[in-house]
Structure formats: C-alpha cells, structure tokens
C-alpha cells in the first residue's frame, strides 16, 4: 500500500513537472528571417512590398521633455553579455540604469550580465519559464528566429525612432516584414597589422587577393618576423580568420550560398568551402602562424601582438581598445581584411550587424510601457543617455548623423566602401555549425584532420540540427 502511495506521488510530481516544462503543443507562428544570404547594402532592396504593407506605421517622435514617467514604480530586467572590465563607467551597467532612473524615478533597471554561451541559454530558459528579461541584447538573422517564433519578443515596427537607424541594418532583425530589434550598431572582423614591420619587410601595399596575402606573409617571414599570432586555445578565434577569407572565396560567385544550404543546393563540402579552409590551413602549414598557438588564449595572443611579437592578428573592430593598448613595443597599427579571392576574383570584406536591443512580449502592460519610455529616451539624440551611449559603445553606431569617433574605423570603412561586404558567416547558420568548424580545425592545426574533414564535420552538424 505504502509503495502504491509513493508511486502515485512520484507519478503526480512527474506529470506536473512535465506539464510545466513541456511545450510540444505551443502554437507559434512560423517566421522567416529577412534574407540571411544578403549583404548589408543589398538586404534593403529585397523587402517585400506586401510585408511592408503589414508593418504598423511608426508612431510620431516625442521630444524627451514630453516623456512622462510610468504611473507606479516598476523594475525592468535588462540582460547583456559580459562587459569588458574598465576603470570607467560602463554604459549598460552604470550609465543606463543611472540616467533612466534620474529621468524616470519610477523606473529602476536591474542589469544582469553573463558570458556569451551561458547568456544565450539563460535568456532562452528564462523565456521558456515565463520569466524573460524585459530588455536584452541579441544577435541578428537566424540566431533570433527561435525567440521570434516562440512569440517571446515584441514587434517594435511602430517604434517612432526606428527610422533613424540604417534601414539595411534594422532589416536584419526583421522577420516576416516586422522589426523586432533596435540595432545597436555594426562591427567587422579584420586583420590588425604592425605597419612598422610591414614597412621593414618591404610591404608597401595591402594585399588585394589571397596570393598577395601569402606573399606578404612570406616577406615578413623572410625578414625574421612571425607573420601571424592566433589565440587558438580559444577555438572561437578561428572564426575570425575563416570568415574574412570565406567572404571573398565563397560568396562572389554565389551570394545565396547560405540560403541554398537549407535547400540542399549547396553544401559545406562544396569545393568553395574546402578551398577556404585549405587556404586558412596553409597559413599554419607554411609556418606563417606562430607555433604552439593551441596553447595561447585570445588574451595572450592580443598581448603578443601589442608587444610586437607578431606582425598580424585576426580580430575585430570590437577589439579596438585592446589592440590600441600600449604594449612592450611602440608601433603604428593598421587594419585590413584578408582577401579570400583569387587574382581575378572580387574582393569581399566582412562587415556585420552587432547586437540589437530586443524587448519582451510576455511582460505586463506596465513593464511594456516602461520599456517604451526607456527606448524613446535612449535613442533620442537630445537625451544625455544617447550621448553616453555614443561615447561608450564599442560598436559602430548606425544612427542617422552619428559618426564613429575612431578615425581608424572610419578610414577602414571608407577604404572598402566600393567593395561588397558580408556578415559574419555563422549568422546564417544554425547553432552548432560554427563550433563544429572551430573544434575540427584545431585538429587540422595538430595535423590530425584535413580541411575536407572540417567541411564534412560542418555539413554533418548542419544536417543534424536542421533535420
């Protein structure tokens, strides 16, 4: 009898838990991300006219003086990925809660930060349990599809200030013609280089194709310099080089390559991808990359570069502060995108949307109203909060009339303005594929795998997660 009672109790608890956690029957809309295989400039043209018609018209812009506080005290939760620690105040952790509370005494913002992997899972789990953050930052295109499909994030197409942002960037957070994220800016993957070493090795012009890039590496090596340092112990760093190369090696001939992966017309095992990985692997094979990089972290590799131990490092515009920091050597820095194209091919470079601000669809009306106020205040040029955002962000802001204060960034984007840009390739892939690439490529570095095997691994993972 006792056993029966225990069994029933356990069964009841199990059933209750399963009902609480299960979601197999949830009704959710199917959504399509806006053109995952488009470039930043080109995506604008593809917006369907019918979708445009469905979009709610933006509300009128309200001056910051006209913004009125919410009727009762409310605490908003904001989630962001871990901020780099600095001596000065951080925008998300300090300025945003402080200035919002100053303007709207009834609104308090509590900020939670987590490292990227934990962050992604925590945000998803919080929403799945009905406790999602009121505001959070997230990635574009395919990476946001599940949150939109599940109905967790709010359609902000009628947000009055959305028109102030570069339309082509804003559309990367649009699904079925509806905007869900306020773009916080853009960034690019790039190759930082030591101008003094380049000059000393006789490199007078930046490489325009892969062969020229190899020549540059050869000249540096011949002069006794280590051409490249990579922090391959942190496997994600491998993406920085591969995506720069892939932009010019894969997409000029087929801009829809990523979209076609889903229809089976293209595969990661196609020659273009094998060629890209082979080009990257050659840099290690020919001894252009410092030895033992699998024992070096990203942070250690950055230190190596600024200490003048290597001539180049694959990183990004987001690493600006770290790269410009003083090291053991004093030298002039520069940036260029590794060309993946052949001599007769077209030069594509990486330029990608950074995160966007998303707002919860499952919050109550008071929280939604408070979120609207925060966004209207934050993204209004007249507000002190906007000023602090522009001053402190590491992204390249894509807001009308705002120019990046970093000369090197502007010079870089200006240099490539006539070339085609491409997003971070993993933006168009499901989770797991980029990890398959980086993990397997570590085996290429150790000599235990071939570029073909890397591509097979990516394709296998892609098929597994999209099945």
């Amino acid at each position, binding site marked *: 009898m006792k056993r029966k009672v225990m069994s029933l*109790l*356990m069964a009841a*608890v*199990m059933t209750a*838990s*399963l009902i609480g*956690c299960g*979601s*197999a029957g*949830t009704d*959710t809309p199917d959504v399509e991300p806006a053109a995952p295989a488009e470039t930043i400039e080109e995506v604008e043209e593809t917006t369907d006219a019918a979708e445009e018609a469905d979009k709610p018209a933006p509300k009128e812009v309200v001056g910051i003086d006209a913004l009125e506080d919410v009727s009762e005290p409310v605490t908003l939760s904001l989630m962001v990925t871990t901020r780099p620690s600095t001596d000065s105040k951080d925008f998300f952790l300090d300025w945003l809660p402080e200035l919002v509370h100053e303007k709207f005494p009834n609104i308090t913002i509590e900020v939670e930060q987590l490292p990227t*992997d*934990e962050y*992604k*899972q925590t945000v*998803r*789990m919080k*929403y*799945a349990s009905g406790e999602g953050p009121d505001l959070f930052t997230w990635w574009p295109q395919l990476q946001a599809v*599940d*949150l939109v*499909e*599940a109905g967790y994030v709010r359609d902000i197409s009628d947000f009055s200030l959305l028109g102030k942002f570069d339309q082509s960037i804003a559309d990367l957070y649009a699904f079925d013609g509806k905007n869900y994220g306020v773009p916080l800016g853009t960034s690019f993957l790039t190759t930082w280089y030591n101008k003094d070493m380049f000059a000393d090795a006789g490199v007078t012009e930046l490489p325009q194709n892969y062969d020229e890039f190899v020549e540059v590496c050869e000249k540096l090596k011949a002069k006794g310099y280590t051409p490249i340092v990579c922090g*391959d*112990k*942190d*496997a994600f760093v491998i993406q920085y080089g591969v995506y720069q190369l892939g932009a010019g090696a894969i997409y000029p001939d087929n801009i829809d390559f990523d979209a076609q992966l889903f229809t089976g017309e293209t595969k990661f095992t196609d020659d273009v991808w094998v060629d890209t990985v082979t080009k990257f692997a050659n840099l290690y094979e020919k001894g252009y990359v410092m*030895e*033992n*990089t*699998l*024992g*070096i*972290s990203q942070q*250690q590799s950055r230190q190596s570069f600024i200490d003048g131990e290597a001539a180049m490092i694959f990183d990004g515009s987001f690493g600006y502060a770290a790269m410009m920091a003083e090291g053991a050597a004093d030298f002039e820095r520069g940036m260029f995108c590794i060309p993946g194209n052949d001599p007769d091919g077209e030069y594509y470079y990486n330029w990608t949307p950074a995160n966007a601000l998303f707002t919860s669809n499952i919050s109550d009306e008071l929280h939604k109203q408070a979120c609207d106020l925060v966004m209207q205040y934050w993204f209004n040029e007249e507000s002190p909060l906007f000023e602090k955002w522009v001053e402190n962000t590491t992204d390249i802001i894509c807001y009308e009339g705002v120019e990046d204060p970093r000369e090197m960034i502007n010079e870089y984007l200006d240099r490539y303005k006539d070339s085609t840009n491409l997003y971070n390739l993993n933006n168009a892939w*499901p*989770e*797991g594929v980029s*990890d398959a690439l980086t*993990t*397997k490529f*570590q*085996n290429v*570095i*150790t000599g*235990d*795998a071939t570029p073909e095997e890397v591509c097979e691994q990516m394709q*296998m*993972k892609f098929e*597994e*997660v999209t099945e």
Partner: protein
Amino acid sequence: MPTKKVRKVLLCFLIPALLFYVIFWVTPVLMSFYYGVTNWKGVGDYDFVGLKNYRFLIKQGTLSNALFNTIKYTLFVVIWGNLQALTLAMILNMKIKAKGAFRTIFYIPALFSTIVIAFIWSYVYAPYDGLLSEIGRLFGSGYVSNLLGEKATSLFATAFVETWKTSGTMTIIYLAGLQNLSEEVLESARIDGCSAWQSIRYVKIPMLANTITVNVMLGLIGGFKSFDYIFALTGGGPGTSSSTLMYTIYKMAFVEMQYGKAEALAACAFVFILIISTITLGMMKRKELEA
C-alpha cells in the same frame, strides 16, 4: 521501541525532505531520460525522435570520446591524487621542524577558487612566456611548454591542476587517518623488525583502508564530474581531446543548443557513473573488511 503510531508520525516528518528530493533530484534525472528521446532545443517546440540522439552519440563517436576521456581523467585524479596526498601526509606526520607551517602551506591551494587556479596555471603552462618555458630557458634547454595545446597532454595537464587543488584536502584526511593509527600496533611492528617501507606497506596502508576509501571516492566523484578546469583551461580541446562527459554535455546543451541530445548523453553518464561507483564502492568495502 516506538509504537506503530509514533513511527507513522515520525515518517510524516520525512515528507518535506522527501518531496524536496523527489522534485529537485529524482524528477530532473527521470526527465533527462524523457528529454533524451526528443529534439528539444531548450526552448520552443520539440518532437519525439526515438533513439536518434543515442544513435548520433555513438555514430559520431561523441559518447566513446567523452567516456574514454573521463575515464583517463578520473584514473589520473584518483591514482596521482592519492599517491601525492598520501606521500605528503606521511611526510607531514613525521617529526619535522615547522610541521604546522608546512601543513598550512600545503592546504593553501584548496582555498583558491577554480577560476583563479585555472588562470594561474594557464600562465604556468603558456608557451614562450609561461613558467615552465621560463624554467626550460633558465636551464638552457630551449624547451617550450605547450602542455595545454598538445592532444596527448592537455587532458593530463588539466587533471594535474585538479589534483594540485585537491591535494590539501586529501592530505588532511590522510593525516587524520595516520594520527588515528594505534601506536601499539606500530610499535609492535617495529619490535618485530619491520623496516620503514614494510611498516608502511604491511601495517599503515592496510590500517588506512577506510581513509583510502574516502579519498578514492572523492577522487572518483571529482573525476567523473570534471568540468570546471576543462572549461577554464582547454575548452575541451585541442579538438575534442580533453572533452569529458560533463564538458561535452555542457557544450551540446549550451553552445550547440541540442538540449535533447545533451540529455541523452547525461542519461548515459548517469548510468555509467552509477555502475562504476557501485562497483568501486563494493570493492573498497571488501578490501576494508579484509584489512
């Protein structure tokens, strides 16, 4: 002897704890078996996929790689960890000067957090400027340490850090065991002409059987749930050469968003750890009785 009625009342007091245990331990474990046969991504809809997750784990070699790495890691932690701690305890149990200070010093690593230790050791192992490379340079050997970047050594180099951290705790346990040994027995061994080694081999170690069981089980638990040092030092790499069961589960669920597949692997890990722990505990208990 409490009456039947009193026993029933006493059993009622167990209900809150039992409910807690069922809800927060039994249910999640059972649910991991349930989700293991779905394609749940941690959010949104899911479908039942039968044994597909288990098939993938076997076909892709993920299960065998994670299991094999976990076994290697655990063996290193148990064997080296115990040898190291037992030796230290024997030394610290001798009549030496500043014994108290040495005992404190050897316990210090246990006081640091995992992340601090991992950070320190990443610089000890780092190529070129790391401590090991510097020592090599000092002796003019030209040795460049890359223990975390080599497939053959990354797992053991990480396990070594774990034993370095736990050595203090294990040493204290052995020290307590050694101090509880009967002086009469040790003295009679000496009178019977036992050498120092014979006294250790045939008297002290058998009499420490209980303590060894505790430390071996601690080592086993530490080895099987090895995650933190792997996460902080190697990220499971190079490739998957240091991916243990727990790290692989984490990566599958939190990086690749394959929650269902991660649950399937967690279920395999649960069964594997249960079997190994039961066998080991049984063996150790038998040894204790023999001793």
